[in-house]
């Protein structure tokens, strides 16, 4: 059955810790992780709650395949109501923490209320204690992890924590585990900080048993690992180049948003690409990239471990950044680089290290800096206000603004509110490259029609991971569709969104879907949990999860108007300037009615009674 059947409920206001049985009816209907955690959230939290009030809850959830030998089975999801968007927040992380937590014997961890003082949660199998975190408050993620391992005298402890950004209320603060793996988006770290919860330290020695049919499971796992190994993307491209393999590819198709989406191709893309990371630097003759790294159980190993040039201006006086560390991944390289026009690879890695060290989302941060640079270029913001000359392309401005933001200083406090609030404050809300208040990632919605629709309809705001149509529109997985064509995309987006919700809920990584479809997930789920998990059932569960999230957002006050893109992406004035997509805008108005129809929603974007009945909602 592969669930542990147990949940921890911690009330931070009273300090009480309760053990509950997992609601197995919900587990069957929503699987685990994203699906099951969100089910608990929507049942227990009023959608209109102030995200930073003690009435909001925050949930750490694993899936039935977390902590098993299924490839990439190390993932967990942090679920809450987002302070950045006001929508459902649901951020997924790899590394080792999720598997360790599951091996301690728990499916899920629910925090309620707000602690009167800083605390951390200590879990050692059945021993669960809230402990004072006065000595950790004000420390970075990295210091917190090191301090806890030392004081617990257990180097095998895994830590999921926030840095200063989460404490200081940066609205896109992340939750970081294993130094450089993050539940990065939507400000889940901000909610954690608002509850005076610094960290969760966990040691799990029980392991994950209860596999329904161990023999069939091991056979299915082995066959699925083979599919990953023999696939060009998961077997060769990702291990060798990481997600950064995309930088040049996406630039060539004219879909690399540049300088706050003013441009759609970046002349400096090659300087910040995977190829650049693997080429010896001119300055010191060493390569940026040291090695690749897998998360728990992952047979792809797309993670990057790099070392910076010790004489680069950002770290020349900071020896603590000279060791090997995580990055750069494609999204961070794009957001910190192309989105601002910065082509200094070392500066991007410095900014990326700080994002990991103090816990912020590099996508929302980098995109917000892009908006700041545009406002500076327009003369709306000045050097005096920002604290530095901030033209597009300035690596010095990027490094400075990263420090200001993570430490909560000066203009960094405004950047920490995200691009929607910042651009509105200075009279140019149209310059926020976001949907539902969450900044776009590294693909241009004008040059790739489906991903634009996916951004506009994503339940957590601008995001590529809710329906990664890039797989089909650019990479031809599972079938090639034309990125410039909007016909047929509503159905494509829906199919990707539903399948992704199922994968996210299983405890596996969405990157497996470069090679796997639901037909690869189904045998692993069936062997671990029960024969009812067929391809059709998984697709239906994915759709059920999508609609559940949608209804939470609708109750929170979102309407069809919020399924939108900024005018730069949809009007002629903002059309792509160069490359294969020259002259293109996103055809959102054409696609949206068809998308609603495919979803079984009314014109206001509400699931109809028939749809809800079909999905058992």
């Amino acid at each position, binding site marked *: 059955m592969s669930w542990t059947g147990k949940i921890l409920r911690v009330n931070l206001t009273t300090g009480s810790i309760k053990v509950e049985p997992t609601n197995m009816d919900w587990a069957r209907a929503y699987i685990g992780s994203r699906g099951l955690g969100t089910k608990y959230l929507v049942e227990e939290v009023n959608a209109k709650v102030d995200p930073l009030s003690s009435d909001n809850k925050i949930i750490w959830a694993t899936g039935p395949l977390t*902590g*098993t*030998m299924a*490839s990439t089975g190390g993932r967990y999801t942090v679920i809450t109501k987002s302070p950045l968007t006001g929508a459902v927040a649901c951020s997924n992380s790899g590394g*080792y923490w999720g*598997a*360790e937590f599951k*091996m301690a014997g728990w499916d899920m961890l629910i925090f309620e209320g707000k602690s009167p003082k800083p605390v951390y949660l200590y879990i050692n199998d059945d021993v669960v204690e809230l402990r004072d975190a006065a000595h950790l408050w004000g420390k970075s993620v990295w210091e917190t992890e090191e301090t806890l391992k030392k004081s617990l005298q257990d180097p*095998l402890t895994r830590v999921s924590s926030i840095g200063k950004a989460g404490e200081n209320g940066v609205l896109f603060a992340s939750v970081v585990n294993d*130094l450089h793996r993050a539940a990065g988006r939507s400000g889940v770290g901000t909610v954690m900080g608002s509850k005076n919860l610094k960290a969760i330290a966990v*040691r*799990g*020695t*029980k*392991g*994950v*048993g209860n596999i329904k049919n*161990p023999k069939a499971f*091991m056979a299915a796992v082995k066959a699925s*690992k083979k599919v990953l*190994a023999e696939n060009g993307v998961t077997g060769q491209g990702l*291990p060798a180049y990481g997600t950064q393999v995309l930088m040049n590819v996406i630039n060539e198709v004219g879909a690399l948003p540049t300088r706050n989406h003013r441009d759609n191709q970046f002349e400096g893309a090659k300087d910040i690409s995977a190829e650049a990371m693997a080429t010896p630097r001119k300055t010191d003759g060493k390569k940026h990239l*040291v*090695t*690749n*790294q*897998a*998360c*728990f*159980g*992952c*047979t792809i*190993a797309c993670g990057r*471990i790099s*070392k910076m040039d010790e004489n680069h201006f950002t770290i020349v006086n900071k020896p603590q950044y000279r*060791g*090997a*560390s995580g990055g750069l991944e494609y999204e961070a390289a794009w957001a910190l680089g192309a989105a601002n026009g910065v082509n200094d690879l070392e500066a991007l890695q410095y900014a990326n290290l700080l994002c990991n060290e103090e816990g912020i989302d590099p996508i929302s941060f980098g995109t917000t800096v892009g908006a700041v640079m545009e406002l500076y270029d327009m003369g709306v913001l000045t050097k005096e206000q920002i604290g530095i000359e901030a033209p597009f392309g300035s690596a010095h401005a990027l490094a400075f603004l990263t420090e200001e933001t993570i430490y909560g200083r000066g203009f960094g406090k405004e950047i920490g509110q995200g691009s929607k609030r910042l651009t509105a404050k200075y009279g140019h809300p149209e310059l926020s490259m976001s949907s539902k208040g969450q900044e776009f990632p590294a693909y241009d919605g004008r040059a790739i029609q489906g991903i634009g629709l996916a951004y506009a309809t994503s339940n957590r705001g601008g995001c590529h991971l809710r329906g990664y149509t890039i797989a089909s529109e650019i990479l031809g997985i599972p079938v090639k569709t034309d990125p410039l064509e909007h016909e047929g995309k509503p159905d494509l987006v829906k199919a990707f969104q539903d399948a992704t919700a199922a994968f996210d809920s299983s405890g596996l990584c969405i990157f497996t879907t470069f090679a796997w479809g639901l037909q690869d997930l189904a045998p692993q789920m069936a062997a671990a949990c029960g024969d009812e998990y067929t391809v059709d059932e998984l697709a239906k569960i994915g759709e059920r999860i999508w609609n559940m999230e949608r209804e939470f957002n609708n109750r929170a006050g979102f309407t069809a108007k919020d399924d939108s893109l900024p005018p730069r992406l949809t009007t002629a004035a903002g059309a792509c300037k160069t490359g294969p997509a020259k002259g293109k805008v996103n055809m959102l108005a054409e696609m949206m009615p068809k998308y609603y129809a495919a979803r079984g929603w009314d014109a206001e974007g509400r699931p109809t009674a028939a749809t809800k009945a079909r999905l058992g909602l």
Partner: protein
Amino acid sequence: MQKVLHINPDKCTGCLQCEMACSFENYGTFATAKSRIKVFDFHHTGKKVPYTCTQCDEAWCLHACPVEAITMNKATGAMEVNEATCVGCKVCTIACPFGTINYVEETGKVQKCDLCGGEPACADACPTGAITFIDANWTGLGKMAAWADKLGNQPSAA
């Protein structure tokens, strides 16, 4: 032919498939904490190194054991712990220079790698070839072949 576990740290990605395979083989659960092979992650250098018992011919653990609970499996060359005989005195854990035999609180006995009776689950699970089970006399064969390939493909000097 005697075979040994051969480890190439350069190929290790830190995925812990080996640790899960080990615990599943021996305990029927996926529990890295119970694994007899451990992967060490040196994050300041980016190095990941799997480490386990190398089955010494003159095994310190075997010689130190006061009750002769550790014996060599003649078929596989593995030093194996007989749990029925082991008294949990832990002297072997002190004697082993490499730290690869360890006490298990739950059973009151020690555990170490036994090569899974000749088909090590860790090597089978490793996705990158960082852990292989190969001819004990020729653990250097792969490296020799790689260098020979380099030499053989040099352009001729003449």
